[in-house]
């Protein structure tokens, strides 16, 4: 009749985030981040769809600098690779804290943040290059969609970097014990998401040929 009944005097306290006490078996925090990332997917989806809608239209309207004249695929491939590697270091960071190796954890999470910063540095360089070549937000549709889409992605990466650095800081203060490894896992999920979104953006903007 009764399923896994909790003893009557022990309430299902709301902060019991540990997996075995939730109906789904997934902790509250982890379920929450997955649900939130689902929402974020649609957010980026809307901007990627906008990008696709407006691809190639500049030829009939405002012209201006075109993607093919500006995009530096080799350069961006390198920065994309760096971002991809940062997901690897993130996984290593999580593994480190799960086995209690705080020194390694701090190395890998810092590496992740640094790779992220390198990626952002690449973005900043690219933006300023394009700006110098005459591509501004309002120049044409490419300027509008490119800067806003990649800009919003960059903002998400930046927030992620701050998040990672704060985890590093907490670990330095001794405030991030192995029982808090889920906090790292959740940051990792966000970081991987931001990476996956970049894969979509990179494909849509850089890899699929356009004029």
């Amino acid at each position, binding site marked *: *009749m*009764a*399923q*896994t*009944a*909790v003893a*009557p*005097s*022990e*309430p*299902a*306290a*709301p*902060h019991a985030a540990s997996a075995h006490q*939730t*109906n*789904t078996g*997934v902790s*509250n925090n982890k*379920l*929450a981040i997955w*649900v*939130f990332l*689902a*929402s*974020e*997917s*649609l*957010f980026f*989806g*809307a*901007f990627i769809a*906008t990008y696709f*809608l*407006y691809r190639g*239209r*500049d030829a*009939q*309207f*405002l012209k201006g600098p075109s993607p093919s004249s500006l995009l530096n695929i080799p350069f961006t491939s390198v920065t994309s690779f760096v971002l991809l590697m940062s997901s690897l270091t993130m996984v290593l960071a999580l593994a480190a804290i799960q086995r209690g190796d705080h020194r390694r954890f701090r190395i890998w999470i810092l590496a992740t943040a640094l790779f992220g910063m390198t990626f952002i540095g690449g973005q900043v360089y690219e933006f300023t290059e394009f700006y110098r070549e005459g591509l501004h*937000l*309002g120049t*044409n*549709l490419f*300027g*509008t*969609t490119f800067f*806003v889409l990649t800009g*919003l992605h960059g903002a998400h990466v930046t927030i992620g970097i*701050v998040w990672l650095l*704060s985890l590093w800081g*907490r670990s330095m203060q001794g*405030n991030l014990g192995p029982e808090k490894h889920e906090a790292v896992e959740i940051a990792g999920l966000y970081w991987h998401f931001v990476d996956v979104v970049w894969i979509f953006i990179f494909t849509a903007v850089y890899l699929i040929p356009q004029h």
Partner: protein
Amino acid sequence: MTTVEDASALLHEPVKRSILDRPRSTTGPWSWFTTVDHKKIAIMYGTTAMFFFLVGGVEALMIRLQLAQPNGTILSAARYNEFFTMHGTTMVFLMGMPLAAAFGNYFLPLMIGARDVAFPRLNMFGYWVFLFGGIFIYSSFALGGAPDGGWFGYAPLTSTPLSQGFLPGRGADFWAVGLIMLGIGSVATAVNFIVTALNMRAPGMTMMKMPVFVWMMLVVAFLTLFAMPPLTAALIQVFMDRNFHTNFFNAAAGGDPLLYQNLFWIFGHPEVYILILPGMAIVSEILPVFSRKPLFGYSVVVFSGIAIGFLGWGVWAHHMFATGIGPVATSAFSLSTMLIGIPTGVKIFNWLATVWGGSVRLRTPMLFALGFIAQFTIGGLSGVLHSIVPADTQQTDTYFVVAHFHYVLFGGLVFAIFGGIYYWYPKIFGKMLNESLGKLNFWLMVIGFNLTFFPMHFLGMQGEPRRTYTYPSGMGWGTLNLMATIGAFVIALSVLVFLVNVIFTRQRGELAPEDPWDARTLEWLTSSPPPEYNFAEIPIVTSRDEFWHRKYTEDDEGRLVKLPPSPEAEIPARRDPHEPHNIHMPSPSYWPFVLALGLPIMGYGFVFKLWWLLAIGALVTFFGINAWTTEPASEETH
């Protein structure tokens, strides 16, 4: 932390506490600022939303006064356009959604036998964002003009830079930024509700044993989660076009105004289900209680709700039938719109079948629920007429549509909300709202509502478009418009009666027992109002309508057999007068308030292009997040 402090605890506590220490009290006026109790938060949502309902209502009365006669001079064109924009924006974002959050907040945890939501501080954050977002948008009246591009804010009217003068003032900026802010709060609450419903059900409560109310709120949460992002994207694009000369909707550069419409309505159509499903949720709880019968076809009602949640994503372009998207697209959306009428209709019939053969008590909550059924159906039927695309090309953008959506949202949602208020008031506040005043409230509202909106079906077919600040004489629209205006004031009177009822009840209301209505679901298995921790012992659930089945069983004919009084059917507090000491509740916190405060600061920074203000807001937000994440959810003090 419990509310009872015994003497020994006092002796152990440090005497000095600074204002910077974490707040501890869960009682008293200050506790309302720092509480994380879902019940207090719900009351705050509900009261604030009702306040905005009154504000939106005043806007409506002003609109109706202006339109009572041809060539009205009560409101200038500019003022009228602000008022109809703010009326829509207020009712959708500052009344409808927050009231759903209010009811969901109070009853979702109680109905699933939980002590609170999954993320109590996030819950509070959601409320502050709502309050600050509402204040932010309304502050525009004093800061250069309120939004005046319609609640839907079509580009390019709203996205053309200010210098072009298409719309006076920077209202559109307040609107875009304000709605983005409100969206953040909505998504936070949606995440909270989803995790709560999926993860925190009492032992034994499988998904199919959850009350319909919980199911509908879960669907609403998922709809919110996925509908807000396209809106946020569209709003960012409008803001960028207006302020940074981007070309998202600039046709001269190849931009497409229809992109805005598509993004907006991909949000906008699920939004209307976000608005109505809570109303359906409330009605699904009230009807069985006041008919003394279970909901007819629980599974079908649940699956219809889920179906509406899914199908609702496939109908958005029915708001765009006149835009010239071509016969193939309009046909497809015509068919999908017709299709969504089916699960909606099924629910109506199931509700009627619930009441059929029951033992019906026509108390105020039941009257509102019955009103919902009839009026929502009328609105649903005019909606089906809209799905006939050629007919819609005559109806869209006229008062026919205004009639349609007011029938479903006022005749439907608002009636359900009032029903829910009368139904659950005893549980929330421990007093019964006056029944005679309640009935007067109901009847005045029925008369006023129908008097206002029924004539609008005809005004629309006779050629009166929407969003027009005046109309000429000689069109034959004067009489019906006057009728609608009178009806609006009758509605105002009914709301006044409601307010009188609330005040009267506060002074002299009859105290409410734990279970005044002989109800079915777990929230009634608590005192009125419930203690902070809801249940001294988490109930173990063995069936749908768990509370009911602890009071009654059925004989072979399917008739009720009252069970002898048992401990399981009694509120545990009655058995054990001592407060339980081993329940750890989440502690109050300042940080949701601080974090939320950063948002309007950033908002003003964006609207007025004051980058230093933006930076300050970002810092406040960052500080708030940092403090919040390093603070444990609950502080143990004993």
